[in-house]
């Protein structure tokens, strides 16, 4: 029985890995080489936040670290910085995940939004402190807003397609175990 639960968990982790890979792949497609006037939401970050807030057991710390370090390297970001900030944010969210189960969705959304905002601002502050050239502030703010706004959509999609729902208190899985 424990094996069945374990394998289910591994399926969940592999699913997260595949989604992350798919998002990286789509972002790398050379479809539009024009500089954009607006910034699309950082979907990988939102997906990670949804997973951590709802099913933290499916996204281990190491997996998040590997995925984000890879994107740091592929997307020409300063390597390591974003990954470290995402790890801090997800750990804070992970600690609150159990409490968020009983909370209304608006509170979950607000918590995640605050974390994403803190992450973005922290990133900019550290980059400024290290005197690194930065992206325009307006574009970053647009992306921050879009990222926060896309959270309910991604959460809904995750629930519909991958069954990443908030477990109700006392809910059990098909094997009769507590989630």
């Amino acid at each position: 029985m424990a094996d069945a639960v374990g394998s289910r968990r591994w399926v969940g982790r592999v699913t997260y890995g595949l989604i992350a890979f798919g998002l990286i792949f789509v972002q790398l497609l050379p479809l539009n080489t024009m500089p954009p006037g607006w910034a699309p939401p950082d979907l990988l970050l939102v997906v990670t936040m949804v997973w951590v807030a709802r099913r933290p057991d499916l996204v281990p710390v190491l997996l998040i670290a590997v995925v984000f370090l890879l994107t740091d390297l592929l997307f020409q970001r300063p390597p390591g910085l974003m990954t470290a900030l995402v790890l801090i944010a997800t750990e804070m969210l992970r600690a609150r995940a159990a409490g968020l189960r009983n909370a209304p969705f608006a509170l979950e959304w607000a918590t995640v939004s605050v974390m994403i905002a803190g992450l973005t601002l922290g990133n900019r502050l550290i980059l400024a402190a290290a005197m690194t050239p930065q992206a325009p502030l307006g574009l970053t703010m647009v992306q921050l807003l879009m990222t926060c706004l896309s959270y309910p959509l991604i959460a809904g999609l995750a629930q519909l397609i991958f069954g990443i729902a908030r477990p109700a208190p006392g809910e059990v899985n098909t094997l009769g175990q507590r989630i």
Partner: protein
Amino acid sequence: MARDRQNGDDFVGPLRKLLVGLLVVVLFGIFVVWRIDSPRVERFRAAVVDAVVPNMDWAMAPVTGLLNMVADFQSYQRIHEQNRDLRRELQQMRAWREAALQLEQENAKLLDLNNVRLDPNLTFITGVVMADSGSPFRQSVLLNVGGRDGILDGWPTMDGIGLVGRISGVGQTTSRVILLTDTSSRIPVIIQPSGQRAILAGDNTIYPLIDFLDSADVVRPGDRVVTSGDGGMFPADLLVGQVALGSDRRLRVRLAADYERLEFLRVLRSPQIEVITDPGTLIVPALPAISLLPPTDPALPPPDAEAADG
């Protein structure tokens, strides 16, 4: 039950916290190392990109092709309108072609009279765009030619008409082109009829800014902008684009290269790239070793040897 679970987690908790903390510290360490010794980490980045992206290429090429086909199909809806525009453009082009032919003949005659030999060093390698930067804040593309094909950092890249960017980051089979629109792109240019020198500075818009212009009065929208070759970075006289007046009343450049469809890019073999080998001697010339204190202990090596070591 819920209490039990939390208690059960508790004795793994501190260890886990410690390991996560360690991981975060290591990641910040990577960032600090990158900030201090950027070239080495960037080389590592190029190696990672080199290992990862070509593996995706089998899927990327068809998906990109398919999506471009969809975009093309959408453009069929406007075909009548486009046709009319093209006809009008063709009419203008005929006039230009006539002028160009006459000029070409004249040019050939003059070259013949002067016995001029054109520079044969400017050859090129053509690469296919594999991927873009993946981030809205960075304007760069990845080409499928790299160190294996003899690409070097700093070489200029053009599409059929105008300058697109410069090589920055070379892997074994891939190389990255920083586009002129990237915020970190600075290119020395010259504005043609007036001969004004300036720096073309990317600012993440499609119209890069003309910076450090001596006198803006003699520059008019529509003037040709070409590379100046200052600093030995690029060959001179590569077409960049035309001067345009931005909506913020600042002089910008309308790029000649077609940034909407960067598909095949030419990497020019630039003959005069300076290779920086030693960061220390570049700024501070080698000083003769002066010993402030006379050596007292004969067992110590003389200060000259130390200076030579360091």
